[in-house]
């Protein structure tokens, strides 16, 4: 699936610059509260205290007002976040169609013998395929017969174990027409590494009798 997404987003709020307010700056616009005239007593002092308090309250109000007004006072900036085109595929590669009888046989033959099946061979193989109701059971037998053919092309175990990653990449491509994802690669590599009995033949047999191989 080819999916392109755009997210139009306008930043409508800008943080107020709090340090612009005299009250919070604390650098002399409003003297410190403590000491001085208050300690000396008298009405003048009280009056001065009240004025300073009023010034502080006023500054606080201005600051609050500033918080509310600043965003609306700034010009909106239209910021658009975009993404690049990305092709999104399911791991199994969007295989929705079941291979027909002829497709299954001819593709399996090509995968294992690296040559096209002849029309006569295709007809020969189609006969038993049509004559039994459990197709997977018959496919299983056909694959096992292919694997027992002297001309089948299968890597050696030595070659497989020399570079398991490469073997798996090639096997997935050959049979499933896709690369394995990281998890598949990791899991299958573990399976092969941990089981000395596993041969390329067994991997081929397993993958060719899997559900995914019946689809394209």
């Amino acid at each position, binding site marked *: 699936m080819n999916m392109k997404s755009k997210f139009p987003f306008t930043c409508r709020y800008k943080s107020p610059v709090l340090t612009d307010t005299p009250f919070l700056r604390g650098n002399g616009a409003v003297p410190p509260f403590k000491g001085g005239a208050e300690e000396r007593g008298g009405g003048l002092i009280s009056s001065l205290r009240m004025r300073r308090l009023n010034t502080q309250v006023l500054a606080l109000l201005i600051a609050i007002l500033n918080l509310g007004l600043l965003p609306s006072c700034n010009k909106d900036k239209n910021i658009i976040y975009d993404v690049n085109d990305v092709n999104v595929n399911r791991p199994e590669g969007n295989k929705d169609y079941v291979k027909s009888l002829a497709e299954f046989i001819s593709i399996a033959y090509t995968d294992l013998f690296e040559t096209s099946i002849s029309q006569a061979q295709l007809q020969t193989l189609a006969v038993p395929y049509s*004559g039994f109701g*459990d197709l997977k059971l018959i496919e299983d037998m056909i694959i096992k017969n292919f*694997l027992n053919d002297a001309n089948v092309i299968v890597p050696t175990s030595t070659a497989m174990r020399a570079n398991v990653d490469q073997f798996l990449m090639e096997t997935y491509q050959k049979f499933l027409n896709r690369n394995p994802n990281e998890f598949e690669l990791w899991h299958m590599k573990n399976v092969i590494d941990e089981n000395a009995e596993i041969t390329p033949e067994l991997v081929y047999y397993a993958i060719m009798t899997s*559900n995914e191989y019946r*689809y394209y």
Partner: protein
Amino acid sequence: MKRRGFIKKATAATAGAFIAPYILPSGRLFAATGARVVDHVVFCLFAGGVRNLETMHKADGNLMPNTLLGNESISSDIASGVQSLGQVGGQRLQEVGTLYKEFRFAEGPTGHFSGHSSVMTGVYNLADINIRQRPSAPTVFEYYRKHTSPETNALNAWWVSNSLGPYPALNYSTHPSYGALYGANYIQPASIISQAGYESLGNPKTFTQAQHDLVGEMRGFFDNNFGNQTIPGSAGISNAQADVPEVQQFLLDSFQEAVAGQYNNPWGLGGMSGDMFNIFFAEKVIQRFQPELLVVNMQDVDVCHGNFTAYANALVRADYAMAHLWQTIQNTPGMANNTIMIALPEHGRNLQPNTVIDPYGRYALDHTNDEMSREIFCLVTGPSGKVVQNQVISQVQGQSIDVVPTIAKILGFYDDISSMLPGQPLNAALV
């Protein structure tokens, strides 16, 4: 624990013990309610279009000497074209069961697939006859597998047909509540047990059990990662994984027996017709798997479209094969005296011939919906005490769509499906 509490819990536990078995085994709420008459049914479609004139009415002598009582000689003009095969056993089949001499294929086109489809679904196929499609109504196999509790696996249900064409489509329907999940194992022996079959399947790579286990593990991983999974029925029916090796070995053994020449003349008759080979292979299935429900057909008599005498000869062979099948059933442990066999043609043939004349001067016969092409017979054989013995019903009674209800009654699931079926069980044949 107080006495009242003890009684309460004990009662609940007892009730649970009775209820649980009816819920758990198959996922169904209740098990099939009907009792079985016997445990096995073999349904022999004596097909190809068989006219009652040549069978029940013996217009050209007794062409079914293994089924019907009587020694009427074959008409002299065709006698040299009809090879007698003798008796398979001491008894005629009609003696071990009930013979409906005037059965009917009452509705629908008198075509082979239409006839097969109707008799195997229990519903006359009037609207959607398409030989490229599976029937829309469930087949007897699906009813059997779905409504037998615990549900049975595919090894218990087989459809053995003597030709390809549309017949492979009859092992399950497109019905959304049934389908491939409940279908039968289909086999067309002449295709599989052949040179082509042997070349394709007969020489497989063998793996050890440990290797098989590893393959199973890897395949499971591949399948789990395949999000699409499989479309039900995309690969036909599915045998249980545990049964697959047994079925494959059965096929491989059959190849070996064929290669060894054991299939050339197994009945000592000097050769096997297509019908005979099909019945012979059905017997192999019976001997190997003792299925609870097996349907097998014959169709060689359809040569009648161009050769009446060959048709009469094919009738003799079909009769012999059916008697051989019955004898095999009686010689198979587990099925002997525990099997009911039902046999009937899918339809008859016309009263009026076509224009083709055979070497013996007889006109050939088609089947194009006239009254006579709807007249057939039905034979129900089985153990005494289960099937009424040596009974002949000569009046018009019974029709093709009664066979599925009869099988359902015999195997104990009729009550589950009676509302879906227009036909009725052939109660007159059952004790």
